[in-house]
Structure formats: C-alpha cells, structure tokens
C-alpha cells in the first residue's frame, strides 16, 4: 500500500515536470495540445491513487487527509482545462494571436505550473512550499503576459510586483515560524516540517507565532486575492489566455488558501497565540462586500468573473475563519464547487470571447440565440456561481450564512446582504449577455463541451445528492481543521 502511494506521489510530481521538458522540446503541431491533456490526465490518475494508497510522511513530502482532497481537485481541473485549452489554443493559432513558438512555451509553462502547484500541496516543509508557490507565481506571470499587448504587459507587471511582494512577506513569516519552532524542535529540517510543527506547536513562543501569522496571512493572502491585496487579480484574469484564467481562479487561489490553512492549524494548536479566526473573518468579509459591489460596474466579461472569484475566495476565507466543523465543512465544499463552476464558466467565456471577437460586455448580446450551447452553458454557470438552488453552491452558502447566524448574527447579515448584491449584479449582466437580440460579429463555435458538461454535472450533482462517502470525507477533514 505505502509503496504504491510513494509511486503515486512521485508520479504526481514527475509527470508534469517531465512533460514540461518534453513539450518545450517538441516542435509545434496539433499533437502537443493532446500530449498536454494526456500528461494532465495521467497526473490526475496518479493523484486519484493517493485516495487508496498513501505513503508514510517523508521529510519533504507528505500526503494527509487535508491535502489529498486539494490535490485530486487540482489535478482534475488541470486535466479538464488542458482539454479545453486544446480547442481554445487551436483558434488562437488560426487567428494569429499566438505564434507556434509561443504555443510551445505556453504548453511547457502549463505543465510547470501543474508541477509547482502539486509540489506546494504535497510539501511537508514550509520552505519547500514557499519555493513551489513562487514557482507557480512566476509561470503564471509569464503566461499572463503571453499576448504581449500593452494591457497584457501591464497585467503581467502588476501581478509580478504585487505577487513578488506577497511572497516576500510570506517568506519573512516562514522565517519567523522556523525561529519560533527551532527553540522547541531543535535546528534542522524538522523545525520546518508540517507534521512536526502541528504536533509541537503548543510549546512554541506565542509572540513570534503571532507576528509570523500576520506576515503569512498578508503574504499568501495576496495570492488568494483578498481585499485590499487583490489589485493584480482582475487584470491577470482579463488579459491572459482564458485557460490560464480558469487555472488561476480554479486552482492557484486554492493553493494559496491551502498555505494559509496549514499555518492556521499551527496557530490554533497553540493556546496562548492569537486566534487566527477573526483576522481571516475580517479579510474574507471585506473581500465579499467589496467584490460584490465591484461586480456592477464591470464592462469586461473576464474581469467580472475575476471579481466574482475574489468574492468567493472571500466567502471561503470567511468560513474557515469562523471555524468549527460545520463552517469548515461548508468552506471546503464551497471551495471545491467554486473551482469547478468558475473554471467551467471561464471555458464558456473563452469560447464566447473567441466567437464574438471581444470581451467587452455591451458588444455581447443574445448568446442563447446565436450560440445556444455557449449561451445556455454560461447561463447555467452564472446561476450556479450566483448561489441559486438547486446547485451545490447554494447549499454551501446557505450553510455558511446559517452557521454564522447562530454565532455572530451581525456578520451573517452583512454576508447575506453582499451575497444578494452579487446575485443581483450577476443576473443583471446575464440577462444582457444571454438573452435579447444578438449583436456584433458572430462566428460558429468550435468548442469542446466535454469539460464544461463534466464540471456542471458535478456541481449539479453536489447540490442534489452528495454521496455519503464524500460527506463523511469532508466532515472528517473539517473536523481535523477545527
């Protein structure tokens, strides 16, 4: 069992790394996109194996109940996005927005990003995780700027500077964690290992831990896109290739949040240290309120959904900040469903922007008339992301609001009101986008609907019937977290 797990862990890391090198070397043609999807599929299979077989925690890598859920989600969305990316990129090549050389670079970077995220999730070492998060930041920066238009360059530059400052702050926090640990654990690698840190945390110096958490929350919080550290996020989503927007929203934000969660569990283990919950609750709530109002003024379709990502990451951070088994359960499930829904929305939006030749929302109308599949796909996605029943996100938002009501009614009112504001904005926009008479240019869509359908089916299923095994699993992880 453990040996199989070890192979699976190695495969989850080696497959993306090796295919990144391979895709960088291979000359460009249509096979590279398929190879990219195949590599992502193999990674996903290896990750799914981790459910059944799990290696013993090593000094650098660990598989535990928390990160296995993240890894499976991450590799699954990585795979479906790679499938979507195949049809998206083919169009970009034809329209000349990307040259074959850039395409080769794009595929290599895609796999490097997968490697970075998997490494960050699997690492049993705060320093290693930091390096992995940095790696994934760098690759996404390069991909955001890949079109080399002035807007794309601005977005990449902004993301670069803000992201770098964020990870610099996170590193300072990491050093402080080591300092507080090494008096108790002793010098060396053990003082940076997750499983050791959580076990020994009750004896750490609380003052140092407090300071470190502030830096870590601000640092990794920048990567999560929490207000007021979110400035890079809408630009990066709007100007890069759409598969990257899907991966950013669906996965990279989760990875950063995962880092925050790991440190939160260290903090919670120390009774004398500051309670991390209120900090996360306030940043999360601020993000929800801010982002839901910002949704109204958007003109750019990808930018609007980027703000919606800020809102949802705010909800998840809020839920984890509230803590307790129920809120953690809802937070975990919300994060999973948001990843699936938002990436599927970006799949639709990517094709919509291609057939309409614009991301400017006033120029996109009547999609259900001109492109029924895309239009109804978008409508389904917006209904899901806005949190309407019977979709899964309705259930999780309902859980979060009700559990907040029981403990801090005032916060629940603010949260509920912002959710309604966001709902209004999204439906308002959807009405214009999807219904009415079509305007502007319109090409026939050559989209691959498989990823979209797969994601929406999962989201729908989660709202109607969650398998008891899955509920038990999420409950178990939620209890570990609290």
């Amino acid at each position, binding site marked *: 069992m453990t040996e199989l797990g070890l192979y699976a862990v190695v495969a989850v890391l080696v497959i993306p790394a090796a295919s990144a090198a391979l895709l960088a070397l291979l000359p460009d043609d249509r096979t590279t996109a398929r190879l990219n999807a195949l590599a992502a599929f193999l990674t996903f299979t290896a990750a799914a194996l981790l459910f059944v077989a799990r290696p013993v925690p090593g000094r650098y890598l660990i598989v535990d109940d928390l990160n296995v859920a993240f890894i499976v989600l991450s590799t699954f969305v990585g795979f479906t996005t790679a499938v979507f990316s195949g049809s998206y990129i083919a169009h970009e090549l034809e329209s000349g927005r990307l040259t074959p050389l850039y395409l080769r670079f794009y595929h290599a970077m895609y796999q490097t990003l997968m490697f970075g995220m998997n490494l960050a999730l699997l690492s049993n*070492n705060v*320093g*290693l995780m*930091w*390096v992995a998060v*940095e*790696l994934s930041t*760098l690759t996404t920066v390069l991909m955001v*700027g890949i079109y*080399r*238009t*002035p*807007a794309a*360059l*601005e*977005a*990449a*530059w*902004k993301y*670069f*500077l803000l992201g*770098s*400052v964020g990870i*610099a*702050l996170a*590193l*300072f926090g990491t*050093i*402080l964690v*080591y*300092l507080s640990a*090494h*008096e108790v654990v002793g*010098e*060396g*690698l053990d*003082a*940076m290992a997750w499983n050791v840190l959580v076990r020994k945390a009750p004896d750490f*110096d609380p*003052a*140092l831990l*407090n*300071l470190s958490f502030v830096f870590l929350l601000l640092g990794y919080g920048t990567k999560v896109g929490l207000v007021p550290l979110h400035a890079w996020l809408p*630009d990066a989503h*709007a*100007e890069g290739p759409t598969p990257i927007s899907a991966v950013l929203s669906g996965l990279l934000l989760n990875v950063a949040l995962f880092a925050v969660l790991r440190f939160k569990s260290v903090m919670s283990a120390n009774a004398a240290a500051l309670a991390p919950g209120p900090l996360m609750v306030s940043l999360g709530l601020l993000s929800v309120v801010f982002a839901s109002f910002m949704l109204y003024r*958007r*003109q*750019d379709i990808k*930018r609007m959904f980027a703000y919606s990502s800020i809102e949802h990451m705010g909800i998840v951070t809020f839920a984890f900040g509230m803590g307790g088994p129920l809120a953690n359960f809802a937070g975990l499930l919300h994060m999973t469903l948001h990843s699936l829904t938002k990436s599927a929305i970006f799949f639709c939006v990517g094709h919509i922007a291609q057939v309409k030749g614009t991301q*400017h929302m006033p120029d996109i109308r009547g999609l259900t008339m001109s492109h029924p599949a895309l239009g109804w796909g978008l409508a389904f996605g917006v209904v899901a992301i806005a949190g309407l029943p019977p979709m899964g996100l309705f259930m999780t938002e309902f859980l979060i609001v009700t559990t907040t009501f029981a403990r801090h009614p005032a916060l629940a009112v603010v949260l509920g009101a912002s959710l309604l504001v966001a709902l209004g904005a999204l439906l308002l926009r959807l009405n214009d986008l999807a219904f009415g008479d079509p305007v502007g240019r319109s090409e026939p869509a050559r989209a691959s609907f498989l990823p979209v359908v797969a994601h929406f089916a999962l989201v729908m299923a989660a709202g109607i019937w969650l398998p008891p095994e899955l509920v038990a699993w999420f409950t178990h992880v939620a209890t570990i977290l609290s």
Partner: protein
Amino acid sequence: MERIALDVAHLFAGGLVLVSFMLLYQDRMTGLVNTFALHALVVSLSVAWQAHIQLAPHLYITAAIALAVKAFVIPLALHRIIVRLGIHRAIEPVVGIGQTMLAGIGLVALSIMVMLPITARAGTLAREDLAFALSVVLLGLLMMISRRNAVGQVIGFMSIENGLILAATGAKGMPLVVEISVAFSILVALIVIGVFLFRIRERFESVDIHSLHEHRGERP
C-alpha cells in the same frame, strides 16, 4: 571573541539599514544602481560573517550568489538598460525626499519596537538581526511605493530580498536557505529580464509605470 562576533554581525546588519536609507534619497538612476550594488555587497559580507560564526559553510554559497548576481551582474545589466533607454535622471519620487526619509525613520523605530520584545526568548544574534532585517524589508516596501519608475521599483524589491536573506541567515541553522536564495535570485533575474524583454520603453515610450495605467482594459 563571542562579543566581537556579535558586534561585527550587528555592524553589517546595521550597515544594511543605513544603505537602505541611502537608496531612499538617490535622485539619479546611476547613483541608485550603484547604491544598490553596495547594498548587495553589505548583505553578502553579512552572510559570509554569519557563515563564519555559525560554522555553517553552506551559507558561503548564499553569500557568493548574492555577491556575484546582485552586486555585479544585475547592476551591470541595469546600467546597460539605463543607457539603452536613456533614463539617466528619470527619477520622480511620488512624495518629497524629506517626507520619505521621515517615514523611513518611523518604520525602523516600528520594527525595533515590534521585534525586540517579541524575540526576547530567541538568541541575541537572531534578535537584533531580525529587527534590522524587518527594517530593511519595510524600507524596501517604502521605496517601492515612493517610486513611479519601473527600475526604481525593481531595486526596491531587490532590497526587500536582501533583508529577507539577512533574516534567514540570522535564524540559526535554518535549512533550505541556499535553495531559497537561489529561487529568489531566479525571481530577481526574471524581473530584470522582464523590464528588458517586455521593453516597457518601446511599448510605452517611457519606463514610468504611470503610463501603464492607461491600459486598464476597462474602457467604458
């Protein structure tokens, strides 16, 4: 002997804070880049001294990387960029130098007041080093927000990185310091290449990142 070891370590760390202040008031590009080279030289001296007193030879690698990359290669590259783009005197601080310096003094006071009481249980070496390192990080952040110029922001970021390396080497026996410093050097090199490759000047006729803001992609 112990006393002298500590004093020299504090001398270098304090020197780094001093050079951070010097970065704040440079009003010429060339001067800014040269001062940054001095910043990198001081940090590599400091790391080398830590390697010596902590008997940690792997830290010499970090010191050598800091010296080679940040005291020589990057300043030379930046000088070339400055000459190629013709921006010798293009520094426009957002607020006046005097106010920036005052804010800097406030930040140093803040970091000492935050750090010294908290690190009471840590060793003397780590204590003051951390306070100095936090000062350097905060001064770097201040520099990044008080410059409109892309090169100025890059230098601000690299000075933050130097502060972090100071903190990491001050934490006795911290593993992965070499790996982290290598990862950071890659980041920094990419930023510098980014300024060059993105050809901000060619695209925007200026490295003043103010002109970037027109491309928000948010046309009404």
